[in-house]
């Protein structure tokens, strides 16, 4: 019994870090001309077959939209391949780099043009990784945007399975009639999005 417990502990504890990570800080309100760039939210052209709109709003604890958040996504391609190609900041309109960034608009709305990611491993539920930055948010937040279709894979997903239903649904996007994905982010409040921590953060 003791041996089993130790084995479990050994498998879940990440190795200690040699150095202490530098603290994060808020992105603040004035990143305006630093981080946004041309076509930052267009991982693919809208004209590309299979392109979809991923969009939603970012809200605070009152349910009020936030006008100064910045979001980034990082995802696999349609076949589930993790790409490693440069050209995210100077897009040529053809290369899929898997990464995008967008500032929300005056009414807290964001839009990416992207592709449905494939599962990176057989039987896994495909998702898009999302990072949230905002004035008033002292450190970045990570979350996942799961595609709603593969219900068997969603049911088997270890992260989703570890959450109660009302929390679980905050991570699953809604498919819209035009093929787009709707995913709202709540920093706080009744529908507070599940935000993630990884083993080796500090």
């Amino acid at each position, binding site marked *: 019994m003791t041996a089993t417990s130790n084995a479990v502990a050994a*498998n879940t504890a*990440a190795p200690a*870090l*040699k*150095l*202490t*990570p*530098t*603290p*994060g*800080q*808020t*992105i*603040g*309100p*004035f*990143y*305006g*001309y*630093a*981080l946004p760039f041309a076509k930052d939210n267009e991982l693919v052209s809208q004209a590309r077959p299979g392109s979809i709109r991923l969009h939603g709003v970012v809200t*605070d604890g009152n349910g009020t939209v936030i006008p*100064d958040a910045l979001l*980034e996504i*990082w995802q*696999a391609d349609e076949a589930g391949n*993790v790409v*490693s190609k*440069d050209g*995210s*900041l100077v897009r040529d309109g053809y290369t899929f*780099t898997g*990464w995008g960034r967008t500032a929300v608009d005056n009414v807290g709305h964001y839009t990416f043009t992207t592709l449905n*990611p494939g599962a*990176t*491993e057989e039987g896994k539920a495909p*998702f898009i*990784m999302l*990072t949230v*930055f905002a*004035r*008033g*948010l*002292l*450190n*970045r937040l*990570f979350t996942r945007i799961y595609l709603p279709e593969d219900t068997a894979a969603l049911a088997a997903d270890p*992260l989703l399975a570890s*959450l109660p239903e009302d929390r679980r649904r905050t991570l699953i996007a809604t498919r819209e009639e035009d093929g787009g994905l709707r995913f709202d982010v709540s920093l*706080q409040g009744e529908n*507070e999005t*599940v*935000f*993630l*921590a*990884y*083993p*080796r*953060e*500090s």
Partner: protein
Amino acid sequence: MSTETTLNESFNDSHVLDPAATALSQEAISAEITDIHAAYRQSVVDGAKAATQPRIDFAPYRSSLLRHPTKNLHHVDPETIELHSPAFGERDVHALESDLTIQHNGEPIGERIVVQGRVLDGDGRPVAGQLVEIWQANAAGRYIHKRDQHPAPIDPNFTGVGRAITGPNGEYRFTTIKPAPYPWKNHHNAWRPAHIHFSLFGTDFTQRMITQMYFPGDPLFSLDPIYQAITDKEARDRLVATYDHSITSHEWATGYNWDIVLTGSNRTWMEDEEGDH
């Protein structure tokens, strides 16, 4: 009363200051900070782990009140996509983008500085070939930004935006102008210490971070709720650059050194784990 208006850090309505915002004195904010820090130090005495990241529910930073998640971050084992990072290269960033003093027709006003250092991961390994972005106010404490209406001069020769790709040893180097402190509307007479914002990528996307570099000896440190949101003094000190006379160059620029440590890479650990099975 709109919370958004009260807490807005923009200055375009500074002629109609909300009494609710200006009613909060620095003394009141500082007292809140002191209490939180005292409670933190006691928790460490009682055996709690050092808090080396900012506390996201740090009430003295009023803008955080409605924007911090109330539930604990959910611990998760990263999957394939999270163990990789976007690729950046010369196509993305021109070498001259790391010099913020040559982006316009003339010399920007202010103290020219060089800020250099290394980006490492939590295992001490250099993070090479990754994007570092910076942005900052000018020598008068003004950002080039539509929401920044602080009545300090805009410098037509300084936008305050730079990019670089880290070298083989994780090194980066920016030439820029020392930014000035500036007022903001967290409370009455609130001023931010001078700082440069840094945005960084690691080899895993889980290492993505945005932070701020400060300058040594700034008298505003103890008054600033954003800086003080890092309750651990040793951790706070990590955001302060070191003046380095060996970086300073004759009749040209003063020099600062600032190394940045990202979190550990989860990728190696996962591979090791798989090897164990």
